[in-house]
């Protein structure tokens, strides 16, 4: 069943949105979503890697021998991740300090390798580009959504992008922070509840 180009793009935003529908790549999802800014930063970095590796893998798919394909994919992905890491150090050092080890760990994020193996190695570059962009955007939105729930309940603030002054104190100073939400167990709770909510909406 051939999908149209728009469908390839849109599927990543809802039907196959990575953390909630594919339930893949949960390690960074749970770890970095303490503030919306971190979530968006991680999402953008992953999107860049995803688009880059998808296009390159699909362009080289006829040249890469089947037996060493995973090794080749990893080389390609690792290159893009290191590029992101260097650029982040050069332009967003503060964010780089916060995301720390999770930037190099994008190499082993199963979403990226999963898309390369399951999609890009079987489809053309244009389709792979749209697929990467869709899945990446979906991933970014999921991180931002999860992070906003956690940050809002955990601190009462919403930090969208500090450099641009987009920091909002939503609940005011009378709010007693429910700091459980920004701890690791809170991440599981928030993820579980959001999964449940998405399934309820999707059911009807």
């Amino acid at each position, binding site marked *: 069943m051939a999908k149209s180009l728009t469908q390839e793009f849109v599927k990543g935003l809802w039907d196959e949105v990575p953390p909630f529908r594919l339930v893949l790549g949960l390690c960074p999802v749970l770890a970095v979503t303490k503030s919306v800014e971190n979530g968006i930063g991680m999402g953008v970095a992953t999107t860049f890697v995803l688009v880059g590796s998808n296009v390159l893998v699909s362009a080289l798919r006829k040249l890469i021998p089947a037996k060493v394909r995973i090794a080749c994919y990893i080389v390609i992905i690792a290159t893009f991740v290191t590029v992101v890491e*260097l650029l982040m*150090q050069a332009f967003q050092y*503060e964010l780089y300090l916060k995301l720390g080890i999770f930037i190099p760990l994008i190499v082993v994020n199963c979403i990226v390798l999963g898309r390369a193996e399951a999609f890009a190695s079987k489809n053309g570059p244009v389709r792979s580009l749209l697929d990467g962009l869709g899945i990446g955007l979906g991933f970014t939105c999921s991180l931002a959504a999860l992070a906003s729930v956690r940050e809002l309940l955990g601190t009462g603030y919403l930090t969208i992008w500090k450099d641009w002054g987009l920091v909002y104190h939503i609940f005011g100073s009378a709010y007693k922070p429910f700091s459980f939400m920004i701890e690791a167990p809170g991440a599981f709770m928030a993820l579980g509840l959001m999964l449940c909510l998405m399934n309820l909406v999707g059911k009807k």
Partner: protein
Amino acid sequence: MREMIKMVVVLTILSFFSGGVLAYIRNTYQGRIDNQVLEFVKGPAVRTIFEGAGNDPIADRFTIKDGEVERTFFVGVFDGEPRGVAFETSGKGYGGDVGLMVGIDVKDSKLMGVSVTTHGETPGMGAKAKSDPGFVAQYKGLALEQPIAVTLDGGSISAISGATITSRAVSSAATDADKIYQKLKTQIADNLKKFNK
């Protein structure tokens, strides 16, 4: 056999290109990355010491080779004159090395101020060396060429209560800075002339 050769060739070419791209990006941005690292790691300490300086002390810096190690010196310009020089030393604390940025007033040869950069001290105890500005403020204006020590050791610094080891580490780091400064004095003075405006 043909497949074997193809596998090796493809992987080699791929790695070759990836290495080239990474080396190129690294070379292009190395200067910027170094600046960012200094700005966020040493920047806050240097800026507190050189408060009210007329220049950007992170951008105005020079390095001097001191034996094996290369030391970075930050310059503070006051009233158009390069009066201050800051560099990092360290002392043995309770939880590893305590890094200390020491600012020296070259003209009056006294301490312009100190600030803790990195440490592994106990929160609420030794960590106060960094979080409590009152402690490091005691070092401001101390004359050089005399050992800097806590009152317990015959000096003038009142130690943080419950954290004598940390206080001693900061004091010994400041004393070390004095020694390094005396040793490299002429080279520092030569380099500072470049920043006269």
